[in-house]
């Protein structure tokens, strides 16, 4: 019968699925351990030999099989979990519906309790009314008929309430039984078993032989079997050592069943469990599922009991196994009956049963009291440890406070546990005393128990007070410490703030000094710059050092910019302003320098022109004077030659020896020399005229930078052109001429104050005559003639460009025989001829 009911899938499925999941996970862990072993073996080292290969092949085979089994296991667990989730959802819905229906019919347990209390209060009230009514009748306050009439109403109501209360009591008893029946989880059954054993151990020999003792022993035996079966079903063999081998067999089966379908697996799994074990497992599984998720244990008990008929059947079976066979006598029945009596005041139980129940309960309580005392003793040890921690001033406050707080909690817990047992014992003693009020021993027990409770309360109160005081003391220490720390922190903070303020003040002063120094430096730079500038402008050295001064100013400006940009406080905008100012100032300096150079060039040009003019005049005068002297000499020589010629002519006429031919030749040469001198002077004048005109053009075009050089070169060319035909004679004395070649080949004596220039040097100066050389040297010494910039490539280039410009200007300058310059220009297509008349020169 039970087998058929158990097979109903909606009962078995959740538990079986839980078992599958659990065992699947266990198997998964085992397989992973196997894989770990394989992993360790495979890590052993690289393969080198045939033996290694063989071992490796086996490892791979094991690995593949194990990993496949693992995959199957994981799939089964996954699938079972999914099915379990679905089953749970269905059961929850079904349970709630059933619970609601039952509550609708019977009312909930809480409602019934409230209703019962109300009935009892009303019955009590009716009894008092009945009593008052009787008193009134005795005193003659009411008539007999009136009394009967009122008493009848009260009695009728009392009967109704009594019946209703009895029916309500039956319903509630049933609910309590259901709750008890639901208390069949593994743990609850184990606890019951322990209690039954403790009770049995307390029985005397006579009591053990009594029907109660026999029944209790039978219940213990059956319950023990069931608990073992339950443990065995979940693989716990601590209670059943002899079944380890069987457990190992199951492990092997686990390995094998992985190849089967899930249905086959469940079938196999069911076969492993006893019917009771299966049902108990089902209830256990459901308990685990529903606790905490539904309306609590009572709700769960009710729902579980009514969930399926099979569970009711099991509950009945289980109740029978405990001796609750419906006829009374089983411990649960008796406890339930006792509770019912306490709750509902039902008088259907005989005094003897109460006596037994109370005695049994006292036996239980005695055990519990011993346990409570043991616990209390341990708690005292714990309290001592906590006290040491609490009073250890070297430990942090948090630990000390926790220890003190824990001590209070433990004391409260200790007191509750002790009082709970003690008060329940008191109740039991009072119950016994109620049965036998004149029993002095029982009166003594009640009094002793009251005293024990009082002692427990006093003792615990004393300990708790001490513990609480300790907490307060530590708290005060904490407060004092905190206040001290706060003061120290405040002092430290104040000190830090003062130090920070001092440091800030120091830094501020330092910054101010730095700023002042910076400003002063800037000011100094500016002053220096101004000073330099002023000195440059004001002093006569400026012209000589102008370029260096401008360079110095640029350098100073650069230094100032670098210095200002070193200031890290500057914003980007300020930096840009400084850069812009630097560029503007630099441009100003460059502009000043450019203006200065321009003016300087103009001045130099003007000076060159003036100098050229002076030189031209000097040369003109010198050449003219020399030419005049020369010509006078030639005239004189011609006179001498004429005299000699006349004398030789006279000798020839007289027929005497003569040098007439020689003298004639000499006279002719002198004439020729005079002609040459005249031509030379003509060329010189022509050149000088060209130079004069050229300097005039320079005045008209002051931008011509090479004017000075041009003039100088022109002078040089002029000078060289003057002596192109040879140097002048070094002397007039023909006696010094070592041979007469018609050239300057005189052999002369030289005084130590005189000098003779080498031919190569003479070439370098353009074969200049001694007189011209002396004149130039004298002019140079007097500052009238300066030769400079000839080596300047730029100037030479400009000279060329000027020449080219002049040649292409459409202007032709010529000098006639009279030394007059003739300027021919073509302007606007009209040819103009201008003759610059000069004072006549002496030829």
């Amino acid at each position, binding site marked *: 019968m039970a087998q058929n009911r158990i097979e109903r899938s909606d009962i078995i499925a959740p538990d079986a699925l839980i078992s599958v999941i659990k065992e699947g996970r266990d198997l998964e862990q085992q397989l992973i351990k196997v894989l770990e072993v*394989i992993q360790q073996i495979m890590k052993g080292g690289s393969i080198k030999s045939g*033996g290694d*290969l063989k071992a490796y092949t086996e490892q791979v085979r094991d690995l593949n099989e194990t990993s496949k089994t693992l995959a199957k296991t994981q799939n089964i667990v996954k699938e079972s979990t999914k099915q379990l989730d679905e089953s749970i959802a269905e059961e929850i819905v079904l349970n709630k519906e059933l619970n609601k229906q039952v509550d609708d019919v019977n009312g909930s347990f809480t409602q019934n309790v409230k209703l019962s209390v109300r009935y009892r209060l009303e019955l009590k009230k009716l009894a008092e009314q009945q009593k008052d009514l009787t008193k009134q009748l005795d005193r003659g306050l009411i008539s007999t008929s009136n009394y009967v009439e009122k008493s009848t109403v009260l009695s009728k109501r009392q009967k109704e309430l009594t019946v209703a209360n009895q029916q309500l009591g039956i319903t509630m008893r049933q609910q309590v039984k259901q709750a008890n029946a639901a208390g069949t989880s593994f743990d609850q059954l184990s606890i019951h078993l322990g209690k039954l054993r403790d009770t049995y151990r307390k029985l005397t020999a006579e009591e053990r032989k009594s029907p109660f003792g026999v029944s209790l022993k039978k219940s213990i035996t059956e319950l023990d079997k069931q608990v073992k079966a339950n443990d065995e079903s979940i693989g716990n063999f601590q209670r059943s050592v002899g079944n380890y081998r069987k457990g190992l067999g199951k492990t092997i089966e686990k390995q094998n069943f992985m190849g089967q379908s899930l249905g086959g697996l469940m079938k196999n799994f069911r076969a492993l469990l006893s019917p009771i074990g299966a049902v108990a497992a089902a209830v256990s599984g459901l308990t685990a599922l529903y606790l905490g998720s539904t309306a609590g244990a009572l709700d769960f008990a009710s729902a579980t009991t009514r969930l399926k008929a099979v569970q009711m059947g099991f509950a009945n079976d289980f109740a029978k196994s405990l001796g609750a066979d419906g006829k009374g006598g089983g411990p649960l029945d008796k406890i339930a009956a006792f509770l019912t009596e306490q709750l509902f005041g039902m008088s259907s139980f005989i005094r003897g049963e109460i006596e037994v129940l109370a005695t049994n309960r006292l036996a239980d309580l005695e055990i519990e009291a011993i346990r409570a005392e043991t616990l209390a003793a341990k708690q005292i040890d714990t309290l001592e440890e906590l006290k040491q921690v609490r009073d250890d001033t070297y430990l942090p406050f948090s630990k000390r406070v926790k220890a003190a707080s824990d001590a209070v909690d433990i004391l409260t817990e200790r007191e509750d546990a002790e009082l709970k047992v003690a008060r329940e014992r008191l109740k039991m003693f009072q119950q016994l005393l109620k049965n036998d009020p004149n029993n002095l021993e029982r009166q003594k027990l009640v009094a002793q128990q009251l005293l024990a409770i009082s002692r427990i309360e006093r003792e615990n109160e004393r300990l708790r007070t001490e513990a609480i005081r300790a907490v307060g003391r530590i708290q005060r220490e904490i407060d004092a410490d905190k206040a001290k720390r706060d003061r120290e922190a405040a002092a430290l903070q104040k000190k830090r703030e003062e130090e920070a303020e001092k440091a800030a003040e120091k830094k501020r002063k330092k910054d101010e000094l730095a700023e002042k120094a910076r400003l002063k430096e800037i000011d100094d730079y500016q002053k220096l710059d101004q000073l330099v500038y002023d000195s440059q402008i004001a002093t006569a050295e400026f012209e000589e050092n102008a370029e260096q001064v401008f360079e110095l100013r640029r350098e100073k400006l650069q230094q100032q910019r670098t210095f200002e940009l070193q200031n890290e406080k500057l914003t980007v905008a300020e930096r840009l302003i400084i850069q812009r100012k630097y560029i503007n100032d630099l441009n100003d300096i460059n502009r000043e320098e450019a203006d200065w150079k321009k003016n300087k060039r103009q001045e130099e040009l003007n000076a060159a022109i003036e100098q050229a003019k002076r030189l031209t005049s000097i040369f003109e005068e010198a050449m003219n004077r020399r030419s005049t002297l020369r010509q006078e000499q030639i005239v004189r020589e011609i006179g001498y030659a004429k005299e000699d010629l006349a004398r030789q002519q006279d000798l020839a006429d007289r027929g005497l020896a003569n040098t007439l031919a020689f003298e004639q030749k000499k006279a002719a040469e002198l004439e020729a020399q005079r002609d040459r001198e005249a031509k030379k002077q003509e060329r010189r004048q022509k050149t000088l005229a060209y130079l004069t005109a050229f300097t005039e053009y320079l005045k008209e075009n002051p931008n011509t930078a090479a004017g000075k050089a041009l003039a100088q070169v022109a002078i040089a060319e002029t000078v060289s052109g003057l002596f192109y035909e040879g140097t002048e004679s070094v002397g007039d004395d023909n006696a010094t001429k070592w041979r007469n070649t018609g050239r300057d080949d005189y052999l002369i004596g030289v005084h130590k104050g005189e000098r003779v220039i080498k031919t190569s040097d003479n070439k370098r100066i353009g074969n200049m005559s001694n007189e011209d050389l002396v004149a130039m040297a004298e002019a140079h010494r007097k500052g009238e003639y300066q030769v400079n910039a000839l080596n300047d490539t730029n100037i030479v280039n400009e000279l060329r460009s000027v020449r080219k410009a002049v040649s292409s200007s459409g202007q032709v300058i010529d000098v006639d025989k009279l030394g007059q310059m003739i300027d021919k220009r073509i302007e606007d297509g009209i040819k103009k001829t201008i003759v610059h008349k000069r004072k006549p020169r002496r030829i």
Partner: protein
Amino acid sequence: MNVHTSIDTLPIGNYWKIIETGDVHLLLDGKNDGTIKTEHLQTAWALIEEEMFDLLAEDKDYIEQVNDERREYLRKLKALIVGDTLSILQYKQTSLYTQEESGDLEPFKYHKSIAVLEAHLGFPIDDSKMSVRKYYIHAQLMKENGTKPN
């Protein structure tokens, strides 16, 4: 009646059939007269396997390949045991040899190997006579010299 206990005498044809069918009676050279038990044949097969492993171990390329495969299996094991994403990704990224499990790699075809070897050698092969060792050495030489005959 003899029992082949070495790859020097066992024909490659028999070897392959044993691999395919697991029937160790193919180690017999002739008909079993009942004196040879299966246990004896399994022992003989174990000897042949060991010789085969020794022969394979002489091929450095093969050993290198097996070592690579072993490292891959270790990554697979780590992925199975640890089960974290990194280990799984590492295994999947480097998976090569174990693809054979999922059928990605082409399985070995015995008869095709004989045909290829015949083409390489230039003469027909009687696999009921050619020993396992000779077959393997020819195949090894063919692999070393390329697909064309010398």
